[in-house]
């Protein structure tokens, strides 16, 4: 082509965390292709854990640099490694590590959470053969790594195209993973299909919005768009429509009402370890990206777009809470609760203050830890087939099956209670510190009425968490449920993950200050 072409300078060092994770994903694919079946799982697991751990180390190593310089613009503005981006990458790697422990775990009888052959037609002979031969779908590991890599790029993306690519990179593996549950295969495939269909629409909205924004600003870089908001006149239609559509795409990913409808179905149908991963990490990544857009591009348009965001915030909190109250399936209940949490986090996002950023980041970590832990516990509580010596089968997700769990498995139920209390925002748990920080930021931003709505919604939310606690500790098991629900013994990785979640939830609840300090330092976006 032309001799004038100049390759951009690439600051490879700043990309290390992302490259580690994505690179491990690529190696994982090669392992699938060439390694003998026996060794695949241990190799994949070691690779995944090493990659996420190394990513955490890399983030830590980059940290001081970012603190001094405020951040680096990589790849000519496609990726921006500033404080929030790096913090989110670190959190994502950490939560990814914890999620991997849950994903990798197997029951004593060697069953993991995934279908032996995900493409087999449910109930077919082929599936039965695959099950009997003890096949394992170890592709799960590279898929999760790719999703995690996309999530890590997502909050760091500096232009709309990178953002879109990251969105797809994180979404596509998740669509696939949702359909891979070992039990209740049809439900799982249905979830996958719905997630994909609706996700495709959301991506289309996002892309359409990005195109309109390009039409407005003549550039897809967020910084340029931000400049154009104040210089270009007479094309507000393009700008507003574009921003609304881009935000819709992101709101879909975080599961805000009215773009939430996929959440309960997908959370219910997906393999529980994946649900935990998805609920925690997707939300983290999507809110990271949303923070960047809202704080970098939105301010001059506060009067135009705030009503929309405020409306979404309010109905997300209210609908999430109210509908969660009536759920009878534990995974659906947690799904609606996650919708409500999206609303609470949005309160921090719309605060549009410096403390808004750090409070949202803190909330996300607190929520993520409790979410992965809670779903990890759900994955251990199983139904037992009727009859003597009944086999342990699918997860016991109906609430009534959880009654009396606290009497028989006090430690596990205690951990679950802790996570629920953190969701509810009860003091001395991480959830409280997060909620407090978010609400304080919103009041700082002059949104006291929103906080009132938030507080009322949290009050109602406390109800269904407490109902579950009552159920576990004070209600006797119904009928002969004493035999029909059990806690399956696993190889122990899940226990480690739950332990990490408990430790994190308590530590962040009792001593939130160190992290809040760090976040307050880091919470500056560079354009």
């Amino acid at each position, binding site marked *: 082509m032309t001799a004038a072409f100049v390759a951009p300078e690439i600051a490879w060092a700043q990309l290390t965390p992302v490259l580690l994770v994505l690179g491990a994903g690529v190696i994982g694919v090669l392992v699938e292709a060439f390694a003998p079946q026996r060794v695949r799982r241990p190799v994949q697991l070691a690779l995944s854990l090493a990659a996420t751990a190394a990513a955490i180390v890399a983030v830590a190593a980059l940290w001081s640099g970012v603190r001094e310089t405020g951040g680096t613009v990589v790849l000519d503005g496609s990726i921006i490694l500033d404080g929030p981006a790096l913090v989110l990458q670190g959190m994502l790697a950490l939560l990814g590590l914890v999620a991997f422990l849950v994903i990798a775990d197997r029951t004593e009888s060697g069953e993991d959470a995934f279908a032996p052959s995900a493409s087999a037609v449910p109930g077919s002979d082929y599936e039965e053969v695959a099950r009997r031969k003890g096949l394992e779908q170890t592709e799960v590991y590279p898929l999760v790594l790719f999703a995690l890599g996309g999530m890590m790029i997502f909050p760091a993306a500096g232009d709309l195209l990178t953002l879109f690519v990251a969105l797809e990179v994180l979404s596509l593996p998740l669509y696939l993973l949702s359909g891979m549950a070992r039990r209740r295969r049809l439900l799982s495939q249905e979830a996958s299909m719905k997630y994909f269909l609706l996700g495709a*629409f959301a991506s289309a909205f996002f892309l359409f919005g990005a195109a309109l924004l390009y039409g407005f600003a003549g550039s897809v870089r967020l910084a340029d768009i931000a400049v154009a908001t104040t210089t270009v006149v007479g094309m507000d*239609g393009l700008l507003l429509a574009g921003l609304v559509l881009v935000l819709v795409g992101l709101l879909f990913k975080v599961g805000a009402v009215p773009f939430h409808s996929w959440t309960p179905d997908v959370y219910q149908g997906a393999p529980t370890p994946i649900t935990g991963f998805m609920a925690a990490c997707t939300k983290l990544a999507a809110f990271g990206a949303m923070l960047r857009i809202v704080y970098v591009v939105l301010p001059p348009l506060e009067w135009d777009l705030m009503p929309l965001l405020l409306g979404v915030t309010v109905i997300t909190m209210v609908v999430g809470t109210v509908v969660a109250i009536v759920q009878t399936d534990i995974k659906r209940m947690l799904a609606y609760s996650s919708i409500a949490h999206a609303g609470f986090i949005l309160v921090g996002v719309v605060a549009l203050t410096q403390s808004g950023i750090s409070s949202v980041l803190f909330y996300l970590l607190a929520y993520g830890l409790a979410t992965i832990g809670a779903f990890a516990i759900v994955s251990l509580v199983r139904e037992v087939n009727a009859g003597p010596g009944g086999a342990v089968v699918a997860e016991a997700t109906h609430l009534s099956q959880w009654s009396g769990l606290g009497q028989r498995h006090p430690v596990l139920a205690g951990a679950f209670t802790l996570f629920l209390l953190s969701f509810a925002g009860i003091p001395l748990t991480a959830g409280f510190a997060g909620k407090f920080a978010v609400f*304080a930021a919103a009041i700082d931003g002059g949104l006291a009425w929103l906080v009132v709505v938030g507080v009322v919604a949290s009050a109602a939310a406390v109800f269904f968490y407490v109902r579950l606690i009552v159920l576990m500790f004070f209600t006797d098991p119904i009928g002969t449920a004493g035999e029909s629900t059990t806690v399956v013994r696993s190889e122990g990785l899940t226990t480690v993950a739950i332990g990490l979640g408990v430790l994190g939830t308590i530590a962040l609840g009792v001593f939130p200050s160190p992290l809040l300090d760090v976040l307050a330092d880091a919470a500056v976006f560079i354009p």
Partner: protein
Amino acid sequence: MILPVLLGVLVVAVAATPLLDRGLGRNAGWVLAGVFGTLAAVVGAQAPAVLGRGETLEFFVPWMPTLDVGLHLRLDGTSWLFAMLVLGVGALVMAYSTRYFPPGRRTGFYGLMTAFAVAMLGLVLADDVVVMFVFWELTTICSFLLIGLSGESANRPAVRTFILTGLGGLALLAAVVMLMVNAGTSRLSTILAETDWQASPGWSVAVALLVILAAFTKSAQFPFHYWLPDAMAASTPVSTYLHAATMVKAGIYLLMRFTPVFGDFPLWNVLLIGTGLVTAFIGALFALQRTDLKELLAYSTVSQLGLLVAIIGVGTPYALAAAGVHTLAHALFKASLFMLMGVVDTRNGTRDIRELPGLWRAMPATATLMTIGALSMAGIPPLLGFVSKEAILDAMVGLPGEPWVGLLVALGAVAASTLTFAYSFRMVYGAFGGSPGTAKHGEAGPSYLLAPAVTALSGLVLAFALPVLDPLVDRLVLDTTGTAHESHLALWHGFNLPLLLSAIVIGLGAVLAWQRVAVDRVLDRQLVPVQGTQVFEAAYRGVIAAGVRIGRLTASNAPAPYLAAILLTLGGTAIAVTLGRPVVPAQPEPTTRPTDWLLVALILVAVTAVVITRSRLAAVALVGVVGFAVALWFLLLGGFDLALTQLLVEILTVVVAVLVLRRLPRAFHPTPRARRLGAGVVAVVMGVAAGLAAFALTGRREMSPASEYFLRNAEEETGGTNVVNTILVDFRALDTLGELVVLGVTGLIIIGVLESARLNHGRLPEKVAGFAQNVVFSARENSLIMRTVARGLGPVLTLLSLYLLLRGHSAPGGGFIAALVGGAGFALAYLAAPAAARARIRLPYPRLIAAGVAIAGGSGILGYLEGSFLRPLHVDIPLPGDGYYHFTTALIFDVGVYLAVIGVLLTALNRLGTEDDIHAEEPLGPGVESTDEDDPDSEDETNDEIDEGTAAEPDLASPKGGRR
């Protein structure tokens, strides 16, 4: 340093309860009582400093400096009083519990009770609003768990209590956040001292209301009073400690703390006095109605708390002094009454006064102690209850403002107190009076009666040692009103108005007690139409029902409604925006031509027909019509390349779609009218929105810098004049290569999915098979014209495609379009074949794909000769005669594109079209032979080779081979 030690020791005690319990069983209470007692003594030892010298002990460690929250603890007079109550009554209740419960382990109970003590002590010691809120919530949680301990029947009361007090806690949280944001600190004493409460009256009122709401829910004030009797489902020690002596006093404590700032707000005074007196009166009235001793005591507590709230509302130093004394007096007599009630209950197996015999003789010690407690409650001299009641009446009469207001308030208190006298009598008489009988288990032992005796008798002793209380009261008044006060508590103040009022109380009360039969008859009915618990349950059910209703909106299994919600939101927004008439800039030039309307009409008709038709085939064809119309439009606008591509894609889409359609029923599933209507609305809204957006948002910019660059420099830099093609193979060759790989992967996926899911092996739907005998479906007869045409057209199309490929760089054409043309040729050949088996195009399509990608990539490597991947090389090859042929490696790249696209198209045609083979091996009827000699399954598994097994003679093909 003493303050954190207090909390620390208690926390250690909580941790130690399981061990204690394992070793000592229910007697673990003695150890805990010892711990509580020691700590009480430690706090008591601070009295000279705190009360005598007026010092305030403080302690501080930072907790969340970022949020400016720290562990500020402080011990002043008010805190001292409440801390003493928490620890002192706590010690006694622990001792009492050792005998109340039957022998056995009580881990949960002791652990939670001690944890509650930590929370309550923390609450009264906290000098940080956030820390105070945290402890406030912890008391709520402990209360919830302690009530829940009593078993299944206590579940609902526990939940009701929790939710109500939790709501109050949230009100407190709101107040706390407002205060913090305003003051910039979370330190309570600073906030109270430095906030400018006059600056924004609305804000101050809001804070005051929130604080009042929190206090009223916690201290069971009307209309939230019902939770306290409800909470009596808990065991007696819990009721004694939490719901009589300490937790319900947290609201009182909160009101006292905020008296310095709100004490002279008229709203504060009116609300507190009004609500307090109403609560005091109805509480006493309900108490008089009850026959269950515990319920009676619960309502009595409600009533007494009302009195306390009212007197705090008065707000004068005298009033706060009276409030302090009465808090102490109430804690003492109510604790002893509750504990004694528990004794009666456990010794007789009932606590209903209708079932209890006259226990005067059987349980003399219990009776004596209970009488002392009841006398104190009724306000009879010489007991502490009398002193505090006198003080209350005195302070009420002295209410600032019009004298008659004070008198009126005092009369309200008199009415409540009269009823108090009556139910006190009713309680003692009900339990011990009447015809003598025996207790089921006899009199309680001394260790059981120790704790109630201490509380009951201290009420008597303190009445004779009133000067001891003076410093406490003075300090408390100083803390809560900021004024120095010298109180002189005494049993006898001479003849004055309060004494007269007291006399009236005793006189009227005595009359009520004397006429108790008549009183019972009057009260033996439902006094109010609504009950608090019922209102609560109704609200609760309402919320659940609302949730179900909202939940049902989204509880669909079909994704369509989900999508509808999103689409309607967006479309609605867009239409709303349009209705706001935004300014749309004019188009730079006129854009509409008459022919456009023709096309619009054509598209509209076709789209409408698509929506209406039930036949899948017709729908595909109609969508094709829309596609052709759009292609025509492109052509009219001069986009020849675009039009060509669109046209070819449409053709091939229809062909492939038809292949797929053969597996599906001929008609769409019938849909209900409502569903169609709904979908129609959504579609129209979205269509209008999209149309408006397209009109408003496009075509109003100049060409982008990128397009301009390509148009200007394409020929000069690449030697090609077809800009579209130069972008594909020169400027953006890497992108194209990527897309090529994706395309190739798609081809492989078609094979993989159809194979692994065995979709190829399913039966065709019956509806199609049902037409099998119809001559129209006979492929052989039917395809005659097609075959004839195809024979001639096939080679032409192939040649045309090669021509388009070669000239693509400079004129419309190029690898992609050429491949589409070639693909159309193959499709024609495929469709023309009488049987699917014969139609197989014997080309190794996966290898074609692979070869295409490899050639494209390989041509890229050639670029390294000039320095970088995919850089096109240019060579001018001299032609025979004159001139040169301009050759560029971009052409090789384009060949790669051509092969890959052809490969994918062939994959689709072959793989989607093969199922007839598979069925052909099952004879359909007599005389019909299968065309396949090999097992098609095994052949599919060796998939990528030319299929030899189907190289059958045309004549062998069954006349009905393609009919399904």
